[in-house]
């Protein structure tokens, strides 16, 4: 145990005070890097600001975004399409993968590692790697598709295909991370539930529907919330691979915002865009929480 190195001499700090003191690094960080900047950003969104002069212009930034900025709408549309394409598919695929691995297969650790590896590859490197895979003349994707008789798809240059290319990349890059979380959730479900279901004569599908899904629903919900937020913040891949092109087909919202802020120095407009993004995410998250009452099951409910 702990040796007594010195007698207690100082007057002991009250536990409540000590607890608060231990959390102050976070509190300070929150005030300096989150709360303060949030308010500042809200203020900036009503100004015209280019790092040298700042002028209050009321709601002009918002009005312009909504009424006369086709790129704003384009970037919103691209991002929403990407989220709809990748979030449900990504969650379903990761869950399926976790279910496969949870069957006590041999080499579970090996497979888990293989599926997890892409999620630790740096975004710049994985973007460069996938650009080469998507290369329409020499890439392996078109070579593989060629074996099935498809030819010459311009994955990153034809706006019909770019979003699918980004979606494929995200399945590879984010699938494993989610899978590991699902696997942990699955392994936390007690075997007794399944035994009880089998005694009642439940088929594997019924067990999945009535035991696995309800007990895993909080984890699914958690992944859904973070998945949507993540989809709205895609930046690096678009910046490196396409620069937003072709014809703005990959002008993701975060890329559009970054350009307005740090390339065109329209910091007021960019702040307005950030707040629009924030409000959109708040609304989507609120809807998800509201909807979750119907399908997310918390054991015990107590906190």
């Amino acid at each position, binding site marked *: *145990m*702990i040796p*007594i190195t010195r007698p207690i001499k100082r007057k002991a*700090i009250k*536990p*409540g005070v000590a*607890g*608060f003191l*231990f*959390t102050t690094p*976070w509190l*300070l*960080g929150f005030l*300096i*890097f*989150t709360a303060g900047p*949030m308010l500042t*950003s809200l203020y*900036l969104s009503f100004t015209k600001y280019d790092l040298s002069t700042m002028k209050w212009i009321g709601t002009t930034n918002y009005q312009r975004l909504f009424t006369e900025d086709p790129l704003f709408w384009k970037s919103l549309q691209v991002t929403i399409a990407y989220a709809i394409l990748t979030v449900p598919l990504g969650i379903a695929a990761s869950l399926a993968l976790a279910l496969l691995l949870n*069957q006590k*297969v041999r080499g579970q650790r*090996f497979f*888990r590692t293989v*599926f*997890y*590896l*892409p999620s*630790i*590859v*740096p975004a*710049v*490197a994985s973007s*460069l*790697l*996938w650009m*080469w*895979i998507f290369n329409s*003349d*020499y890439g*392996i994707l078109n*070579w593989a598709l060629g074996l099935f008789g498809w030819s010459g798809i311009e994955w990153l240059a034809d706006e019909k295909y770019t979003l699918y290319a980004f979606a494929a990349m995200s399945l*590879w890059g984010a699938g*494993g991370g989610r899978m*590991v979380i699902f*696997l*942990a*959730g699955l*392994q*936390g479900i007690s075997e007794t539930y399944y035994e009880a279901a089998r005694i009642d004569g439940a088929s594997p599908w019924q067990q999945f529907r009535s035991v696995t899904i309800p007990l895993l629903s909080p984890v699914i919900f958690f992944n859904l919330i*973070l998945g949507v937020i993540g989809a709205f*913040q895609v930046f690096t891949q678009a*910046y*490196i691979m396409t620069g937003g092109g072709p014809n703005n087909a990959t002008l993701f919202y975060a890329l559009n915002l970054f350009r307005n*802020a740090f390339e065109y120095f329209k910091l007021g407009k*960019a702040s307005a865009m*950030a707040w629009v993004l*924030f409000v959109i*995410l708040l609304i989507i*998250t609120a809807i998800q929480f509201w909807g979750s009452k119907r399908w997310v099951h918390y*054991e015990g409910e107590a906190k």
Partner: protein
Amino acid sequence: MKRIAKLPSYFVLILLSALFLVPFLWTVSTALKANEDAFTFPPQWIPNHAQWDNFPKAWTALPFTQWVLNTLFITVVTTAATVITSSLVAYGFSRFKFRGRNAMFYTMLATMMLPGQVTMIPVFMIWRTLGAIDTFYPLILPAFFGGGAFNIFLMRQFFLTLPREYDEAAMLDGAGFFRIWWKILLPLSGPVIATVAVLSFISHWDEFNGPLIYLNSPEKYTVSIGLRMFQDSYGSETNQLMAASLIHILPTIVLFFFAQRYFMKGINLSGLGGR
């Protein structure tokens, strides 16, 4: 009988893991080719002659040594700061009752949903006012304030699983709060420390957006920004571009393999986080 029932699962798993590995193999294969061999169709998987000198060529074409040192410096300092401050804050949240604790804790969780874009511009203005543009401070100092909500949350979840009796016994022996954190909780927290450290290392090693905003002079670049510069200057040398990408990827993979055992234990906690 049971084994046979699992055969389709094995088939799917093996097929999928091959699909997941192909991008890596393809990168390695390209990185070892002569550049003209990279541009053949159908692609050639095994290089005629492994061109190992693509790696030193890529490394010396641009100042990668400097960039790796810069990135290592930033990454090591932020990781140490994250582990220490996140565990301190988590200690406060998990072991003490005080007024406003729950409000603070839930506020902290809510910040995980805040898109970084909302704070990006004002935070940039702060660093600009302090004259810290084109320095490492904007990339390092924020890690000293708890190291991010998710890391604090992971630490707290782990601390909650450690019996309080240990703390109480130590307290009877005369240990103060700080000593309990240092001598009791931290030594028992190997898996979660490993997880937070690995996640933090990887995320700072990978980071692109921050260095892109704050670093202007090439000698201060990190590997991710440098790799972007390499793409601009030597994009047509695909073999060297892939070699450079592998240089960027390799440390994360090596680290992951070393820490894997602990790391997976800790990650499992985040799965329980959804509950």
